[in-house]
């Protein structure tokens, strides 16, 4: 590999990277990169990871079966794409990335078991994986005990920080506060109705939202409701919404419930082009199941939309569809999952080592200019600096970008004043 790449991705000419991404199919056909020219294994791998002179093994740990398979499929696809692209560009420190994929089966102990297998048996240099908070909580002690490196893609509730995890999604404040500020300024919203599925992420997010709404914005929460996962009857709460007439419905409903909720909302005559609804749980992936006509007009607060108009994203979307089919859609989490392998590659090259301790230490400050969302950088707390964006759902199931923060938003997993 060239010296330029050894010094880390931050130094790679951004255009060259983009060309590499766009030219990926041609590249993989015409010139297979030669692996094995990196620094010697004894130098870059002092802890017995699965690194040879020509190969390095990473793990992919998502649910391919069970209820979460719906959501996690996109992440697996994005991670495989990133690994392919990195390999086409010459791999990491001259080594080809080989991946071992394990199925978490939508079952948290299985996640812990498989994480242990990836770290103990397969000696994976890093693992891209997990989706739900519960699965992450289950594997966290495993990663800390066996000193592994996890790249976790989902936006989540915060309140966590670990040497062994890089959180490539947003923590709660990054996703919530800018969106609420925007809706207050733009729509003059004074009253909010908070809805959520009954588990930790919606509850914590709504807690932060409530604090912000009441203490900082000096406005009012007129209702807060939670439903069991998989709940499909929302007519009663829709009536309550009609009764309280909130300026904004703030919805954090997940999974199959989502579909039922938006269909029933529409059927009940709540017109999302007039009633402001802000969600942080519906990505393009979910709209696929909900149906664009049922959710058109709703606002979502994310860091990435498939429709983002920048060169990185265009190349990413093209490559993704080329690999996984024209019909696939790309949501916020899928993009965050795509960042994992790239950030890991950049960090390894910055540290000039695969050792987990060195990678963890080198992580703060690592940046990725080729990110489809624009530009990201790892913070000292192992979360990403990234922008917050508000999009509006269209009939075709895509979001139209309405607003984005001018600067990168600092990740703050333990927000003071919001606990």
């Amino acid at each position, binding site marked *: 590999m060239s010296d330029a790449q050894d010094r880390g991705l931050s130094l790679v000419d951004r255009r060259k990277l983009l060309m590499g991404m766009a030219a990926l199919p041609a590249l993989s056909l015409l010139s297979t990169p030669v692996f094995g020219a990196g620094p010697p294994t004894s130098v870059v791998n002092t802890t017995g990871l699965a690194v040879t002179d020509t190969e390095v093994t990473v793990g992919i740990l998502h649910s*391919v*079966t069970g209820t979460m398979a719906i959501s996690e499929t996109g992440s697996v696809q994005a991670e495989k794409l990133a690994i392919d692209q990195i390999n086409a560009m010459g791999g990491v420190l001259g080594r080809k990335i080989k991946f071992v994929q*394990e*199925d978490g*089966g939508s*079952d*948290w*102990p*299985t996640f*812990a*078991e498989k994480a*242990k*297998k990836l770290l*103990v*048996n397969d000696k994976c240099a890093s693992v891209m994986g997990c989706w739900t*908070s*519960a699965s992450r*909580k*289950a594997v*966290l*002690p495993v990663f800390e*005990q066996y000193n592994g490196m996890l790249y976790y893609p989902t936006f989540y*509730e915060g*309140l966590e920080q670990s040497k062994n995890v890089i959180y490539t999604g947003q923590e709660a404040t990054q996703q919530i506060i800018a969106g609420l500020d925007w809706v207050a300024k733009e729509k003059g919203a004074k009253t909010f109705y908070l809805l959520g599925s*009954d*588990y*930790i992420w919606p*509850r*914590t997010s709504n*807690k932060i939202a409530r604090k912000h709404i009441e203490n900082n914005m000096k406005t009012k929460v007129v209702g807060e409701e*939670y439903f*069991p*996962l998989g709940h499909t009857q929302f007519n009663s709460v829709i009536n309550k919404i009609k009764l309280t007439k909130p300026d904004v419905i703030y919805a954090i409903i997940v999974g199959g419930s989502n579909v039922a909720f938006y269909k029933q909302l529409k059927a009940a005559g709540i017109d999302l082009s007039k009633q402001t609804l802000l969600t942080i749980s519906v990505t393009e992936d979910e709209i696929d199941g909900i149906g664009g006509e049922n959710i058109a007009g709703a606002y979502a607060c994310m860091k990435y939309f498939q429709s983002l108009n920048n060169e990185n994203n265009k190349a990413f979307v093209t490559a993704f569809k080329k690999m996984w089919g024209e019909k696939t859609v790309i949501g916020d989490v899928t993009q965050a999952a795509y960042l994992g392998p790239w950030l890991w590659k950049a960090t390894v090259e910055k540290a000039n080592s695969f050792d987990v301790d060195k990678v963890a230490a080198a992580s703060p400050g690592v940046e990725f200019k080729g990110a489809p969302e624009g530009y990201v950088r790892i913070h000292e707390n192992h979360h990403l600096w990234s922008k917050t964006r508000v999009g509006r759902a269209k009939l075709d199931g895509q979001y139209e970008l309405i607003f984005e923060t001018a600067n990168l938003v600092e990740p703050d997993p*333990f927000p003071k004043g919001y*606990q």
Partner: protein
Amino acid sequence: MIINSRFFNRSELLGFLSLALLLFLILPLTLDIFRLNLVAKYLTYAFVAIGLVICWGYGGILSLGQGVFFGLGGYCMAMFLKLEASSVANTKIQSTPGIPDFMDWNQLTQLPFFWKPFHSLPFTLIAILLVPAIIAFIIGAAMFKRRVGGVYFAIITQAIAAILTILIVGQQGYIGGINGITDLRTLLGWDIRTDHAKFILYFVEVILLFGCICAAQFIRLTKLGRILVAMREQEDRVRFSGYSVANFKIFAFCVAAMLAAIGGAMFTLNVGFMSPSFVGIVPSIEMVIYTAVGGRMSIFGAVYGALLVSFAKTSLSESFPQLWLFGLGGLFIAVVLFFPNGLSGIWRDHVQRHVDRLLTLVKSRKRWSGRSIAVGAPAE
């Protein structure tokens, strides 16, 4: 039926010894600690499966809510371990140090009253056995006294599993919500996460398992066991003979609940956390399939069933994640349609006579009195 003065008849002794050989010697010597820990996890389900042999195989009471008891036992253990892990020193970054982290995230500022007794290990150990037993007693007394049984009982236990899951998931401030109780570290200062600890825990579990096997065997051999079988076959005749059918059923159900709870507690110790995903309907039904595969009438079969199905689950889902559900579904159907007596039935019908012949050749002088008494009568 089973009339035998000895505790184990010959073929059971054979089963007992070979299982002991497998669990005490072969597995620990051949598997690395990672796989051995997996075996320990599988064996926690064997406790539940043995309980189901008593209450379903012998008593004819199919409970689809064993996950409830597994979960209760597991949660009791997890609460104790979590309190130990949440010492003031460990949790000083929280706004209220000294309480479990998830309570802090949910703005609880002091320990809820029902957590307080779990500071004590003896209380915890008693609770692991008593809480499920009491709940099983309440459910059982309410249902069996009114002669609810069979299908209705199965569906109601299923509903109870659903209720408990929703309740746990909904009360995340008090009991950890869907994430469960995670990050358990030490037991009385002894780090349970190390390889060494896992090794010791494995043996503790196997010893406990053999204790439970003997207890189950004891129940089976006493008059009680025979009444259970009689009840399953002809409930009314037993009732007319003057026995209180309900009380026997309640007893069997409580025993099954306690066994499940022991399994749950060992699960928490071995795996290091507990979550509502073991309480719900799906895990509860999977627990039944362990018993069905092993043979609902066979205590040893239950252990092998739990081991084999879990092992198949792990290895199939490792290599063919897509096929796993087809395999599991097919297994359910095959066991029900073709092998109603599970592995032990296959053993009895196809293997044992060869073993018998072999043994009679060796000890041709002694006569053994047929094979059918070994494992009990078939279900129908």
